[in-house]
C-alpha cells in the first residue's frame, strides 16, 4: 500500500490534536507515515512523538532533526517534505500528503505544490478514501467537493475534521537527513514569544467556543466565566479585537480563526458576514444579544434577547450548580 505523509503538528515535540485527526484520515488513503520535523531528542522515549503517533496508526515515522531549520520560516520544511516525498515515491508509492491547515501549514503546502508539481487543496474539512476533499467556502454558505488531478495530492486539513481513532501502527523510525538550500534560509524567525497558556482548550480545536463582541463593552469576565463553566475556549469578534479588548489570536472570523465546534455561543456579537465566515459551520449556535434585530439571530438554534452582563452570570451560576 502507498504511503501517506502526515506532517506532525507540534510545539517543541508536544504533539497537537490535529495530528491524530490527520493520521485518522490518512488511514483511509493508504499507509500513514508521520513526519516529525523537530528536536530529534523528542522523537523517542515513552513520552516521545513516535509513541504518540504510533497509537494513531503511524506505520513509519520520519524523524528530521530541526537544528538547522528551526530559526527559519516555511521554506526549509517544504524542502524536507519534497525530499521525503521523493524517497517515498521511489519506495512503494505515495498516495497523498496531509498537512495541518494552519497559516504555516498552508504555506508549506503552497511551496511544496510548486516544487513537486502537484495540486493543492487547502482548508479541507473532510477527505474520503478516494481522495475527494470537502471545503466550506463563501463564509460557509457553500460546500464544495474537489480532487487533486495532478501529481501527489497535497491537502491541508482543518482541525476538527475527523474524530481521532486509535489503532496500533508499527511506528518504524526512519532518521531522515534532509539537505536544506541556502535560499530557503532567507526568512528568519528573529524572536518568538509563545502564546501565554490560558488553561483553556485551543480555540480551533475546542468542542465548545464562547465568544464576545462589541456588546461586552470591553468586559470579558462574563464571557470567560461562562467559557470556564462549559470547559470552552474563548473567542472574540473583530470589533472586540480592534477595540484592543482581546488579542488578535482570539479573533474568530474571516481574518482570524475559523472554528467549527459542537457549540458556539456568541455574546454581544451582531453577526456580520466576516464573523459568520469564521463560525457558520458550528453544529449548534447560540446567541445572546440586546438587539433583537441582530443578524446573528438568523443563524441560531437558540437565542436570548437580553443583556449579556446579566444573562451570562446567571446562566453560569446555574450551570455550575447543575454540574455540582
Amino acid at each position, binding site marked *: 500500500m502507498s504511503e501517506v505523509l502526515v506532517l506532525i503538528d507540534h510545539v517543541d515535540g508536544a504533539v497537537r490534536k490535529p495530528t491524530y485527526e490527520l493520521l485518522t484520515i490518512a488511514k483511509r488513503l493508504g499507509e500513514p507515515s508521520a513526519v516529525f520535523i523537530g528536536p530529534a531528542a523528542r522523537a523517542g522515549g515513552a513520552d516521545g512523538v513516535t509513541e504518540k503517533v504510533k497509537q494513531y496508526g503511524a506505520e513509519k515515522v520520519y524523524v528530521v532533526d530541526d537544528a538547522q531549520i528551526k530559526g527559519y520560516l516555511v521554506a526549509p520544511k517544504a524542502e524536507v517534505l519534497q525530499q521525503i516525498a521523493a524517497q517515498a515515491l521511489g519506495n512503494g508509492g505515495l498516495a497523498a500528503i496531509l498537512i495541518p491547515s494552519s497559516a504555516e501549514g498552508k504555506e508549506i503546502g503552497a511551496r511544496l505544490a510548486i516544487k513537486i508539481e502537484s495540486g*493543492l487543496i487547502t482548508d479541507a474539512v473532510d477527505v474520503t478514501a478516494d481522495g475527494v476533499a470537502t471545503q466550506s467556502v463563501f463564509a460557509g454558505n457553500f460546500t464544495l467537493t474537489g480532487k487533486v*488531478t495532478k501529481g501527489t495530492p497535497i491537502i491541508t486539513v482543518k482541525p476538527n475534521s475527523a474524530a481521532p481513532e486509535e489503532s496500533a501502527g508499527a511506528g518504524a523510525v526512519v532518521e531522515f537527513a534532509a539537505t536544506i538550500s541556502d535560499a530557503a534560509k532567507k526568512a528568519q524567525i528573529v524572536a518568538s*514569544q509563545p502564546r501565554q497558556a490560558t488553561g483553556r482548550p485551543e480555540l480551533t480545536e475546542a468542542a465548545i467556543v464562547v465568544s464576545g463582541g462589541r456588546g461586552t463593552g470591553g468586559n470579558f469576565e462574563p464571557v470567560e466565566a461562562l467559557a470556564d463553566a462549559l470547559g470552552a475556549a474563548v473567542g472574540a469578534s473583530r470589533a472586540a479585537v480592534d477595540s484592543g479588548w482581546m488579542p488578535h489570536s482570539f479573533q474568530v472570523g474571516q481574518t482570524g480563526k475559523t472554528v467549527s465546534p459542537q457549540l458556539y455561543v456568541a455574546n454581544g456579537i451582531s453577526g456580520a458576514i466576516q464573523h459568520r465566515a469564521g463560525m457558520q459551520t458550528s453544529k449548534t449556535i447560540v446567541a445572546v444579544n440586546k438587539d433583537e434585530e441582530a443578524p446573528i439571530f438568523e443563524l441560531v438554534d437558540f437565542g436570548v434577547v437580553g443583556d449579556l452582563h446579566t444573562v451570562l452570570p446567571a446562566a453560569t451560576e446555574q450551570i455550575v450548580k447543575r454540574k455540582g
Partner: protein
Amino acid sequence: MNIVVCVKYVPDATADRQFESDNTVDRVGVDGLLSELDEYAVEQALQLKEKAGEGTETVVTALTIGPEKAVDAVRKALQMGADKAVHVSDEAIAGSDYVATSLVLAKAIEKIAADSGSPDVVMCGMASTDASGGVVPAMLAERLGLPQVTLASVVETQGDQVRVKRDGDTATEVIGGTMPLVLSVTDQSGEARYPSFKGIMAAKKKPLETWSLGDLGVDAGQVGLAAAWTTVEDTTARPPRTAGEIVKDEDGSGATALTEFLASKKFI
C-alpha cells in the same frame, strides 16, 4: 525602490455570491471590487514609499489578473496612490487555480522587472476574500525564488532589511528578511486610506497597461480551468439554518432558558 503590489478583484462578500455551472466562481453576475484584504497591501506599499522619502525614487506598481471589470481593482490602487498599474486579462485564464494564478503573477512580475527594474518587495494581502486560501504569496515566492515574510501585522524596514511582527499559529513572532522578498500583510497592519478627490483625478493620468498571456510568454494551455491541478466536482449551497427558538430575557428567564437549552443538548 520598486514595489509590486498584487491585488485581486473579487465578488462583493456582502452580495449573493454564486458559482457558475462549471463550478467556477461567478465573477460577472455579482458586483465586484478590490478585495478588502488587498487594500491593506496597497496601504503598506504606499507607506514603504512614503518612508523611503522624496530623495529616493520609489515606484509602486499595482498588478491584477482578471476579466475586463477587474481593472477596477488596480484603478482603486492608483486612486489610493500607486504609480502604475498592470492588468493581465485573457479569456484563457478563467477558472485558473492557485498554481496557474501564481504562474501568471510571476511571469507578469518578471516582465515588470525587465521593463522597469526588479521589484525589491512583492506585496500581497493575507488572502483573497473569495477563495481565501492565502497560499498565492508563498507560491509566488517559490516561483520567483524569493524568501517570504508573510502575515505581517507590523512592518518595519531599514534599508533593505525588513522586520515584521506576526501572530503565528502558536506564538507571536518577529520575522526578518532581506529584500528582495515577498511580503504579505494582514488586516491588523493598519487602516487603508480612502482615495482623495485629488487622488481620484490624478489616477486618470497614471499609466495603466493591459497585458495578454502572449505578452507574458505564457501558453494558454498552462492556465485556466482545463489546466488546473485540482478539480471541483460539486458545489452545494449550504441549506439555510432552520429558524431557532428566540426568547426575551425578562427577570432572569433568559438565563434559565439558556441553561435548559444547553442541558437538553447535553452540553452540561
